[in-house]
């Protein structure tokens, strides 16, 4: 039996691809999330954030008595926030590359020479603290990062009615770290915040 749907969809898809050929840049993300314009801030690093005027920064970085560094984030941050966050971490003596990704996004690898076993996780270096009402907290122990090494921290965030951190991917790199080139990665269904 002829599969009419297969042929109909092919015609529609060919049109789609031909239209795209003429399109300057991919704009699918906007179309894809028309129903979720309010959550576009969580769509990833490529989206320009809109800082709230007169409000406190979306993040805070503090030194704990034991020498560890506490990072507190209250809302989805944009690239400018992350640059400032990295600068603040540098001020505390920690070299870090922080990227904020949407659910289903990943950084193209390899972007650095990593040290340690990627499957063992960050161990004592990095902790996600139990969630507080007003955001997410992480504790970084910089004593585990040697001179010349960089903390590569990729935070994956779920889009939804409210943003939610799905997970933090933390590794230590030796030497330079390439900027995150966003590629598609696995989508987490029913994210469990705070991982």
């Amino acid at each position, binding site marked *: 039996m002829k599969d*009419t*749907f297969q042929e109909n969809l092919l015609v529609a898809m060919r049109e789609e691809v031909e239209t795209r050929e003429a399109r300057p840049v991919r704009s699918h993300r906007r179309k*894809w999330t028309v129903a979720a314009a309010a959550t576009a801030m969580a769509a990833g690093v490529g989206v320009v954030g809109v800082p709230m005027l007169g409000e406190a920064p979306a993040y805070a970085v503090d030194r704990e008595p034991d020498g560890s560094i506490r990072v507190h984030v209250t809302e989805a941050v944009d690239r400018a926030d992350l640059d400032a966050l990295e600068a603040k971490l540098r001020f505390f003596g920690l070299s870090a590359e922080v990227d904020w990704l949407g659910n*289903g996004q*990943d950084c193209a690898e390899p972007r650095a020479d990593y040290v340690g076993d990627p499957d063992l996780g960050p161990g004592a270096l990095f902790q996600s603290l139990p969630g507080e009402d007003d955001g997410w907290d992480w504790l970084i122990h910089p004593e585990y990062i040697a001179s010349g090494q960089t903390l590569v921290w990729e935070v994956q965030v779920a889009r939804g009615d409210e943003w939610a951190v799905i997970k933090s991917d933390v590794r230590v790199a030796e030497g330079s770290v390439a900027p995150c080139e966003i590629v598609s990665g696995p*989508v987490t269904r029913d994210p469990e915040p705070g991982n």
Partner: protein
Amino acid sequence: MNEVDPKDVGTNADAFERFYRAHYERVTRFIARRVDDPYTAADLTAEVFLAVVDTAHTYRPHKGTVTGWLYGVARNVVAEERRRRGRDLAAVRRIAGRRLLDAEGVARMEERIDAEHAARRTVAALAGLPERTRALLELIAVDGLTVAEAAAALGITRVAASVRLHRARKTLAAAVEPEPAFA
């Protein structure tokens, strides 16, 4: 094999057609193993190929085969649909697959859905497992992917996939074993 380079699929209609014809059956079967309604299956098939076109430029050969990548894309689309349904959100669809269905198309889709009846039962049986484990088991046990392909589809290393699989086996064995004998 004259495999189409996925990089061209999003920008060249002829390349897309070759890719589409080579993988159409694989995609519709994947969906029929998870969805029992021909209209939703048609919508999701369209969504998968749209996602293919959107993300073709992100395919990285060193991360795995085209098949593994395609299953990853299909999985994301189905997962997104489940998530949306869980929240009762309507999908915004660029191409409404169901509008392209006529009676013959419905019949063909229903044939696939009928043929995948047993696979859907397996998918349903895995539903209670943690998401990461379930995703991996689905791809291997239901879709017949190798561990390496499933790892590529999920964006994890092969070692991580093997570890997860090993733990899943232990969990399943523990769940099955204590069955008491009937008196």
